[in-house]
């Protein structure tokens, strides 16, 4: 099979879609159309490529061409594996005058979830790619309008899932059990074979509730063994030692041999072997994997009417899940459909099992560790901080202009937070909870499972934050206190983990833990420690930079006074230094806590199937089960918890704010004891932060059986699965990062001044500015889609840097507010007496004293933006808004060593970029300019 044929299929698919468009538009304006999948050709083999060619012709202008006026733009929402060849849409525009704008709807589950939530104000005119497992939900939600495509003639009747023609079948693909050829001479041929312990123990499949192929596999077992027999089948699988992961990625790249694991059988797609050939790093004639051809019957019946099903196809695959299909061909290269990809991030990954048909049974996980699934949330974690209060500063009396300035200072951040945080949250909550009464809410909250999830979420976050402080403080101390060569590099390096895609890092940490347990025979609770380690790894930068920046400004003479008063160094540290650091410690603790509290990717990848947090539950309910009300109750719970924490932390910080006088210059490392101390701390930092990075770099350089830079070179070329090349995505990311940093800093400075001044508005701002960190990205992402319909804000690509700035804002405040509060009011007073107006005082007194804090905050805002995944995945629309983390994620969600290598390489490039940026800022600032 070659790319040519793939493209042809894509074309076919599209044409079908267009036919739909025509129907939709003529019908009525507000609605989304959906379609799905199914298509005849099915098999992956090259043979079927042309099956559809005929469709091609008819689709285009089908029935009601007059409905579309040339010049009209048709918006098409689809899942993130949708990809068409260059020029295809251009040709269409030439032929018909219609412009097509593609909206990326996330993975298959998310696509449907967002369509349901935005029903009434759809994001697009046509929805492409709903498969039969999700179809019923869409139909029940009334998303689609009937349209009978003339192309239906070529579609077998049994594939027409909806008799009312609200959706049009376009493609069919299969989910198959893949096996590694070299490992199994005698591959299984049907489901029964898999229960043989020799095979079951080498078989990895996915949780039906979180993974589409996993769900397909489950349906296949139900179809085969019946409502009465499938549970027994799963019991046998479990007894035989089957492994279940949360997502496709963890199964394929974590457990299966393709990714270095030891499982020889995996639930994946019929097209996977083809992808292994297409994306191999070294050319191969035959794929290393094969699919077992079984005639399983499609589970379809399970799903209500959608049943039609599939046929055995000839090629050989097997299990077909029926209808899958989304898009373009099911094929190989894109590896098909929505397949794997989904997962996203922090917020949202999605995937999905859908539920219907009852709840998908939850096979008992047999193993509890998940591997990397992709996911990531990677990146997106970030969040913010907080800060406290005010204390002094009243300068400048109430002249009209100062009142105006203050008002503006208050309005800017307020408006920003209301539009980008409060309003979207209210909108999505309102919609999700429309039919829910207080009793229902109570019922959700009193579920034991919810309580235990909340409990785990809180304690793991508390522990993660505590460990992060413990690991970060010694490093922050060394950086703040001593002068040594390599300090700039250390400071720059520390921030790298913060921006690395979660998926990638989680995979690296998992690898490290594998190594540790096999070498040292660790018997600890691995999933827990892996999760905690990952949180520490990601967040140590927050402690080192935020606390370190403040620490270097703490007046060391007070410590000396304490020493002359008889306090030992430890006692002086506890009673003086620590006390002065309290506000900033509390702020960073809260930041890290919130990050860990809403951690998504790390939990999904490393937490195994049993570790769930409120965040992952929100995702599961919203995307996989589409029980938006339950998800909304959980999201509200999250907001309540975060608000309580933010308010109490702010109060604590205000109460403990101290004024600094004096400066502390870094001291040289001039004694043996100091050398040992500094060296051991740096050693700790390097081991802690460097190990996963080394693993990552190693993987990015691994090409086939050797090493090289092939994956890096490949970054400049566009892979067909990405709308643009990885390099271009990186350029977008940089642009967004710069904008986000500028906006976050500008808004943050205004907000910090208001907060520092105190008063109810300051306290309110302080609390609400933390919300974006503590709110699930899924919630916020849906909030944008539902709430920001005015002026079509949700479609603006500038919403992306704005959303990033919202997440970066807490960092700016965490760094800036304590610094502002620590300015000795007498210095300002002195300046005022010398004739400086309040504005001049700000510029000449405050600014020099806090610019370092501002730089640190801005740096974090940029870093947050560079790594952000969750919100971006909801907002990215096309080439202009496709970012590097999205590219990493998409590359990782597909089979093929080459793609995985490129994902690793791109992650390394992001890391290098950030480290370089941080180093540049450090150097420019220089030691000498260190103020405060």
């Amino acid at each position: 099979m070659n790319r040519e044929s793939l493209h042809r299929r894509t074309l076919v698919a599209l044409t079908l879609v267009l036919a739909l468009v025509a129907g939709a538009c003529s019908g009525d304006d507000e609605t989304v159309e959906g379609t799905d999948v199914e298509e005849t050709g099915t098999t992956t083999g090259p043979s079927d490529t042309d099956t559809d060619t005929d469709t091609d012709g008819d689709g285009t202008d089908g029935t009601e061409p007059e409905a579309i006026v040339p010049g009209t733009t048709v918006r098409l929402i689809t899942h993130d594996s949708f990809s068409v060849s260059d020029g295809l849409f251009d040709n269409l525009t030439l032929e018909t005058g219609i412009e097509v704008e593609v909206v990326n709807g996330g993975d298959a589950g998310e696509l449907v979830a967002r369509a349901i939530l935005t029903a009434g104000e759809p994001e697009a005119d046509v929805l492409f790619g709903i498969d039969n497992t999700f179809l019923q939900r869409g139909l029940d939600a009334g998303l689609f309008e009937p349209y009978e495509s003339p192309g239906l003639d070529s579609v077998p009747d049994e594939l027409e899932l909806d008799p009312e023609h609200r959706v049009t079948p376009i493609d069919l693909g299969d989910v198959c059990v893949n096996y590694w050829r070299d490992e199994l001479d005698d591959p299984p041929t049907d489901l029964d074979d898999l229960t043989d312990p020799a095979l079951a123990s080498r078989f990895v499949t996915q949780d039906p509730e979180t993974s589409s192929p996993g769900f397909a596999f489950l349906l296949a077992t139900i179809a085969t063994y019946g409502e009465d027999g499938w549970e027994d089948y799963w019991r046998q699988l479990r007894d035989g030692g089957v492994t279940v992961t949360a997502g496709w990625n963890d199964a394929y790249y974590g457990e299966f041999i393709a990714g270095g694991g030891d499982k020889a059988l995996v639930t994946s797609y019929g097209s996977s072997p083809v992808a292994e050939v297409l994306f191999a790093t070294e050319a191969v004639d035959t794929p290393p994997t094969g699919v077992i051809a079984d005639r399983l019957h499609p589970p379809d019946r399970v799903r209500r009417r959608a049943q039609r099903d599939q046929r055995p196809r000839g090629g050989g695959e097997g299990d077909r899940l029926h209808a899958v299909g989304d898009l373009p061909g099911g094929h190989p290269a894109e590896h098909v459909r929505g397949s794997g990809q989904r997962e996203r991030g922090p917020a949202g990954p999605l995937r999905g099992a859908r539920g219907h048909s009852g709840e998908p049974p939850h096979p008992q996980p047999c193993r509890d560790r998940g591997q990397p699934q992709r996911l990531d949330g990677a990146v997106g974690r970030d969040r913010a901080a907080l800060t406290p209060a005010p204390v002094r500063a009243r300068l400048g009396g109430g002249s009209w202009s100062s009142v105006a300035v203050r008002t503006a200072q208050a309005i800017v951040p307020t408006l920003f937070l209301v539009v980008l945080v409060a309003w979207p949250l209210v909108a999505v909550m309102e919609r999700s909870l429309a039919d829910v009464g207080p009793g229902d809410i109570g019922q959700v909250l009193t579920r034991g499972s919810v309580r235990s999830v909340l409990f785990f979420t809180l304690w793991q976050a508390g522990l993660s934050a505590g460990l992060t402080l413990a690991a970060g403080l010694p490093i922050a101390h060394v950086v703040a206190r001593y002068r040594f060569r390599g300090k700039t590099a250390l400071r720059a390096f520390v921030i790298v983990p913060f921006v690395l895609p979660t998926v990638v890092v989680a995979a690296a940490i998992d690898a490290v833990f594998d190594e540790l347990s096999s070498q040292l025979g660790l018997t600890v609770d691995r999933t827990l420690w892996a999760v905690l380690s990952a949180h520490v790894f990601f967040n140590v930068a927050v402690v080192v930079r935020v606390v370190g920046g403040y620490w270097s400004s703490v007046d060391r003479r007070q410590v000396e006074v304490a020493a002359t008063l008889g306090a030992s160094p430890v006692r002086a540290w506890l009673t003086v230094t620590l006390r002065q650091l309290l506000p900033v410690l509390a702020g960073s603790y809260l930041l890290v806590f919130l990050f860990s509290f809403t951690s998504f990717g790390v939990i999904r990848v490393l937490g195994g199937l049993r570790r769930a947090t409120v965040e992952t539950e929100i995702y599961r309910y919203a995307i996989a089960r589409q029980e938006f009300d339950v998800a909304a109750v959980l999201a509200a719970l999250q907001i309540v918890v975060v608000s309580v924490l933010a308010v109490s932390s702010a109060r604590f910080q205000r109460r403990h704010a101290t004024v600094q006088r004096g400066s502390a210059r870094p001291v040289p490392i001039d004694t043996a004891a100091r050398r040992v101390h500094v060296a051991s701390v740096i050693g700790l930092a390097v081991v802690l932060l460097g190990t996963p990075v080394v693993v990552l770099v190693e993987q990015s350089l691994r090409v086939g059986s050797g090493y090289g830079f092939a994956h890096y070179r490949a970054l400049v070329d566009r892979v067909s699965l990405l709308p643009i090349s990885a390099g271009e995505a990186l350029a977008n990311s940089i642009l967004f990062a710069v904008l986000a940093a500028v906006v976050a800093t500008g808004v943050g400075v205004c907000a910090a001044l208001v907060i520092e001044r105190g008063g109810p508005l300051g306290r309110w701002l302080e609390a609400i500015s933390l919300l974006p960190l503590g709110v699930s990205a899924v919630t916020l992402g849906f909030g944008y889609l539902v709430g920001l319909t005015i002026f079509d804000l949700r479609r603006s690509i500038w919403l992306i840097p704005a959303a990033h700035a919202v997440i970066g804002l807490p960092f700016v405040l965490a760094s800036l507010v304590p610094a502002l509060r620590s300015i000795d009011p007498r210095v300002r007073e002195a300046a005022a007496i010398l004739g400086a107006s309040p504005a001049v005082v700000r510029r000449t007194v405050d600014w020099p004293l806090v610019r370092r804090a501002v730089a640190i905050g801005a740096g974090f805002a940029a870093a947050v933006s560079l790594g952000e995944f969750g919100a971006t995945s909801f907002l990215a629309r096309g080439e202009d808004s496709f970012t590097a983390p999205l590219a990493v994620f998409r590359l990782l969600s597909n089979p093929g060593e080459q793609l995985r290598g490129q994902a690793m390489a791109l992650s390394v490039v992001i890391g290098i970029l950030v480290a370089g940026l941080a180093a540049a800022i450090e150097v420019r600032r220089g030691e000498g300019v260190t103020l405060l």
Partner: protein
Amino acid sequence: MTALEVDRVTVRYGATLALDRFSLHVGSGEIMAVVGPSGSGKSTLLRAVAGLEPLAAGRVLLAGRDLAGVATHRRGLGLMFQDHGLFAHLDVADNIAYGLRTAGVAPQIRRARVADLLDLVGLEGFEERSTEQLSGGEAQRVALARALAPEPGLLMLDEPLGSLDRALRDQLTGELRRLLTNLGQTAIHVTHDQAEAFAVADRVTVVDDGRPVAVGRPAELWADPGSRFVAEFLGHRNIWSVAVDGDGSLRWADQPIGRLPAGHPALAGGAGRRLMVLPATGLEPASGVEPASEPERCSLPVEVTEVVFRQGIHEVTARAGPGTVHVSTTDRLEVGQRLSLAVDVESLRSLSD
């Protein structure tokens, strides 16, 4: 008895020598002022004694005990900084009690002691004030009370009054001396202000460039500064280059100004030209207008160019033949007035340049 002995201590900051083989003795109960211009090493001396700066060479002994290897918090010292360094997170009582707490003093005793100390520094009832509510002078007193609380073997004051206004400073200077003297507290008082040093200290050490250049009781040091640097630093303004004849007669430029009595220390070097200092009180308006003819009682004709009235004294600047002279007198003089000044040649002292 020597409470503190600093023995040839050297402290380096990188390539610069902050203290160069510095030696100093402070007797028990003595108040030693250390004065010198900024950057002369005064503060470094305190930090070295406190153990806050490592010694490149030399020893520090407190009550005869070598402090090498003794950590700051075990040295039993008190230190008070210019801007007081009060702990902003603690109230007044807790600030003062800090050192008592580290010493493990029981709470009741602590409370009583804090009250006594506040009483001592004139701040009765300030226990629960926050440090932000204190005025500059009050903060200094609290800092002093805090430093005194553990009854340190040596109290070190680093520009303790530097940030206060003059009137308050003068007032506190007196109080400080009284208080330290009454307590019998051994102290080193570092300042750049010679007036403050003279007012507080039993003895004064003048420091320049990391070395002590003069040590003495305030009156002795004032009367005989020994070097031009010290004389100028202490505020002497009549520094003349005087020719001494074999018989002891003195000429400033070509103007005879008197004759030294036999045995005057300035004669020790024999005839020749040398630098001499005369306190401003060593000149006074002479009764006659004509220059006296007898060499022992010369007078110097001058014209008054400036008069400043300060605390009952007229500080007069006048132009004389050889240059400018400065006179302190209770007489009332007018600018432009011409008169003769009698020179108290016995007050003249030689200076090294």
